[in-house]
C-alpha cells in the first residue's frame, strides 16, 4: 500500500532540502500566475478548453474513429491497445519489423505508466530517454517525480555526481550549463545512432489525423526525424476534435506548466517522411473504466501541464515520489485510485481540499471535489483504517442529538481543564506532537447564551 504520510514525513525530515523543493516549485507557480494573468480572457479559454474536452469525451468513440480514418489516409499505421501489455507488445513488434535495436524516446508519461522501458530492455532493445530530466532519472533508475520537470527533486550537485559516474564529466563541476552541454553531447550521439524514435502525444487532432508534441529541448523532433521508424504512443483521451482547437490548448498549456507564453517547439506530425514508417498507438489501459465513472470522468480531460503539482502545498512539501504512483500530485491522486483502490487509498487523503488545484487547472478539472468523492468510495469499500472509522462513527452518533453533544462537550472540556498540561499536550497524540490544544473554557457558547440571552434574542 502506498504510504504517503510516512514518505512525506521522511521528505520533510530533511528540512532544508524540503524548503528548497517547496521554493523552487512555488517559483513555477508564480511564473504561471504572471503568464496567465497577462491574458485577459484566461477564464474564457479555460471554459472553452473544458467544454471541448467534455464534448470529446462524451463522443470519444466517434472521434477515435474519425482520427483513425484521417491518420490512415495520411499514410500512418494506427494501432489499438486495450492494455499496457498490448501497447508494449505492439511497440516491440514495430521495432522488430524494422530491425531496430536502439530507440530514443521523448517524454511520455504513458510509457512510464505502461513500464515500457524494462519490457523493451528485457527484449534486447536499448531505450534512451532524451528529455534531460527524464534521462537523469533514467540514469538514476528512478521514476520522474514531476510530470513536466522529472528531476525537480534533485540538486545540481546530485546531477553532477551522477554524470561524473555515468558520463565521466569533470568531478565536482555542478554548473548547470556545463552539465547540460555534456548531456547534449551524450544525447546527440544517441540521436545519431538511433534507429527508432518513440514520443508521447500532447494533442491528437481528429479532423486532420495530426499528433502534436510539445518540447523545449527539441528532443522529440531530433529523434523522430533521425530514426528509421517513428512511433507515437497516446492515451485515447488525448483527442481533440478540430485543428482550430489547438489555438486554445496551446495558449493554455505552456503558460500553465512553466509560465512560458508557448513552449519552444510545438511540432505537428501529420504524414510520414517518404520510406519512413509512422505508427500511432491508441492506448486504453484503464481509461474507458475511468470514463465509466461519472464523478471521475472529467479527470481524463487532463493535458498534463503539472500546474496542480506546482500549486499543491502538499506536493511541494512531500515530493513526487511520496505518492508512489506514476503520476504524482493532485491529478495523480484522482487518476490512480481508479487503477487499484486498495493500494492507493491513502492518496485522496493527501490533500486539505484547499481547491487550489482546481482553480489552477487549465481545463477546469474539479480535482478537489473528485478527491472528496474518492474518499466516500474508499469509506464505502471499507478501506478506511479503524483509527478513523471508530472515533468518527462515535462522533456521528453524538452530532445527531443536541443533548448527547452538549454532554460530551461538557465532559471533554472538564477533563481538558483538569488533566495536567503534559498529558493534554502529549506528544503521543498526533495533534499535540507539535501543536498545543486550545484552552478548554468553563462554559460553551451555548451555556453562555442560555445565561445571557435567556429568552432568545
Amino acid at each position, binding site marked *: 500500500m502506498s504510504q504517503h*504520510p510516512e514518505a*512525506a*514525513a521522511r521528505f*520533510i525530515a530533511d528540512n532544508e532540502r*524540503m524548503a528548497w523543493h517547496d521554493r523552487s516549485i*512555488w517559483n513555477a507557480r508564480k511564473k504561471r*500566475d504572471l503568464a*496567465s494573468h497577462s491574458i*485577459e480572457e*484566461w477564464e474564457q479559454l479555460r471554459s472553452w478548453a473544458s467544454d471541448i474536452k467534455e464534448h470529446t469525451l462524451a463522443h470519444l468513440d466517434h472521434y477515435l474513429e474519425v482520427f483513425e480514418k484521417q491518420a490512415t489516409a495520411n499514410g500512418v499505421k494506427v494501432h489499438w491497445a486495450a492494455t499496457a501489455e498490448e501497447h508494449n507488445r505492439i511497440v516491440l513488434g514495430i521495432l522488430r519489423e524494422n530491425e531496430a535495436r536502439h530507440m530514443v524516446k521523448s517524454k511520455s508519461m504513458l510509457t512510464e505508466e505502461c513500464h515500457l522501458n524494462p519490457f523493451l530492455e528485457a527484449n534486447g532493445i536499448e531505450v534512451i530517454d532524451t528529455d534531460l530530466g527524464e534521462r537523469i532519472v533514467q540514469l538514476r533508475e528512478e521514476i520522474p517525480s514531476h510530470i513536466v520537470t522529472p528531476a525537480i527533486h534533485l540538486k545540481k550537485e546530485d546531477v553532477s555526481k551522477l554524470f561524473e559516474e555515468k558520463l565521466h564529466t569533470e568531478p565536482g563541476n555542478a554548473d548547470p550549463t556545463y552539465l547540460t552541454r555534456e548531456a547534449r553531447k551524450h544525447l546527440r550521439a544517441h540521436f545519431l545512432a538511433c534507429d527508432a524514435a518513440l514520443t508521447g502525444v500532447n494533442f491528437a487532432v481528429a479532423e486532420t489525423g495530426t499528433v502534436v508534441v510539445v518540447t523545449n529541448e527539441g528532443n522529440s523532433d531530433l529523434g523522430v526525424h533521425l530514426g528509421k521508424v517513428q512511433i507515437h504512443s497516446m492515451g485515447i483521451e488525448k483527442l481533440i476534435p478540430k485543428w482550430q482547437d489547438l489555438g486554445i490548448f496551446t495558449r493554455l498549456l505552456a503558460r500553465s506548466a512553466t509560465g512560458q507564453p508557448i513552449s519552444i517547439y510545438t511540432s505537428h506530425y501529420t504524414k510520414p517522411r517518404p520510406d519512413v514508417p509512422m505508427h500511432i498507438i491508441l492506448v486504453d489501459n484503464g481509461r474507458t473504466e475511468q470514463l465509466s465513472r461519472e464523478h471521475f470522468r472529467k479527470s481524463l480531460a487532463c493535458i498534463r501541464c503539472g500546474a496542480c503539482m506546482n*500549486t499543491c*502545498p*502538499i506536493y511541494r*512539501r*512531500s515530493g513526487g515520489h511520496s505518492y508512489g504512483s506514476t503520476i504524482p500530485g493532485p491529478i495523480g491522486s484522482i487518476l490512480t485510485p481508479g487503477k487499484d483502490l486498495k493500494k492507493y487509498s491513502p492518496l485522496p487523503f*493527501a490533500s*486539505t*481540499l*484547499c*481547491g*487550489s488545484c*482546481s*482553480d489552477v487547472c487549465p481545463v477546469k478539472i474539479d480535482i478537489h471535489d473528485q478527491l*472528496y468523492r474518492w474518499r*466516500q468510495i474508499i*469509506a464505502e469499500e471499507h478501506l*478506511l483504517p479503524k483509527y*478513523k*472509522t471508530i472515533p*468518527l*462513527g462515535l*462522533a*456521528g*452518533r*453524538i*452530532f*445527531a*442529538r*443536541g443533548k448527547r453533544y452538549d454532554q460530551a*462537550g461538557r465532559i471533554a*472540556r472538564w477533563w481538558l481543564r483538569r488533566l495536567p498540561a503534559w498529558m493534554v*499536550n502529549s506528544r503521543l497524540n*498526533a*495533534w499535540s*506532537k*507539535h*501543536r*498545543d490544544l*486550545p484552552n478548554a*473554557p468553563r*462554559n*460553551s*457558547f*451555548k*451555556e*453562555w*447564551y442560555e445565561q*445571557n*440571552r435567556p429568552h432568545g*434574542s
Partner: protein
Amino acid sequence: MKVGLFIPCYIDQFYPQVGVATLELLEHLGCQVVYPPGQTCCGQPLANTGMEKAAQPTYDHFQEVFSGFDHIVAPSGSCVYHVVHHYPVESRPQGKVWELCDFIVNHLGVTQIAASFPHKVGLHPSCHGLRGLRLGPDSERVEDRPDVVRTLLASVSGIELVDLDRRDECCGFGGTFAITEEAVSVQMGLDKISDHQRHGAEIITGTDVSCLMHLEGLIRRQGLPLQTRHIAEILNARL
C-alpha cells in the same frame, strides 16, 4: 430581520468568545438573532474523511434545527461551504446559509464597520471561504471580484493589514488531515506563520477558527510573539 445563528461545534466548545462576538456584531447591525439550542455540528469531519453516510443523521439534525429561518449565518466559511456544497440537496435547510462577512456585505449591504483595532494584522483567507464560497478573488483565477473579508477588515479603524508572500496558500489544517498527515500539516502551518511573521503581523485573523486553532497551537508550542483572532472579534472591537 430574524437570523438563525449557527455556531460550529469547535467554536461552541473551545472558542465561545467568537460566538459571542458574532452574536453581538449581528445584533449591533440590527439583526434579530436567534440561536437554536439543539445545534451540534455540520458533519464535515465525517464527510471529509469519506463517511458521508454516517454523517447523514447529523445533516438531518442540522436541517431540523434550522428549519424556519430565511437566513442562517455562521462565523465559518468551511462549515457553510460544507452545508451548501456537500449536503445532499434534499438535506439542505430551506433558508440561505451565509458565512458571516458574506452576509454582512452582500445581504445587509454594510461595508464599513465602526470598530477599532490598532494592530498589524495578517489575513489568512481560509480556503473553503475563498475558493469554495468565493468570498474574494484567489491568486489562481483571473478575475475581478470584490473581497468581502478584506473590505470589512480594511474599514476597521487603526488596523494595518500586512501583505504576505503567499497570500492564499493553505495553512495545512484540513480537518482530519491535521492528524493523518501530521508532518505536512505542521510544516504548512509553520511556513504560514513565518510568512506572517516576516511581514510584521502581530495578529493573524481569518474567517475560520479551525485554521486559526491549528496556527495557534503551533504558535503557542513555539512560544512565538503572535496571536490569532477570528475576524468577528476584530469587527466587534467596538469604537
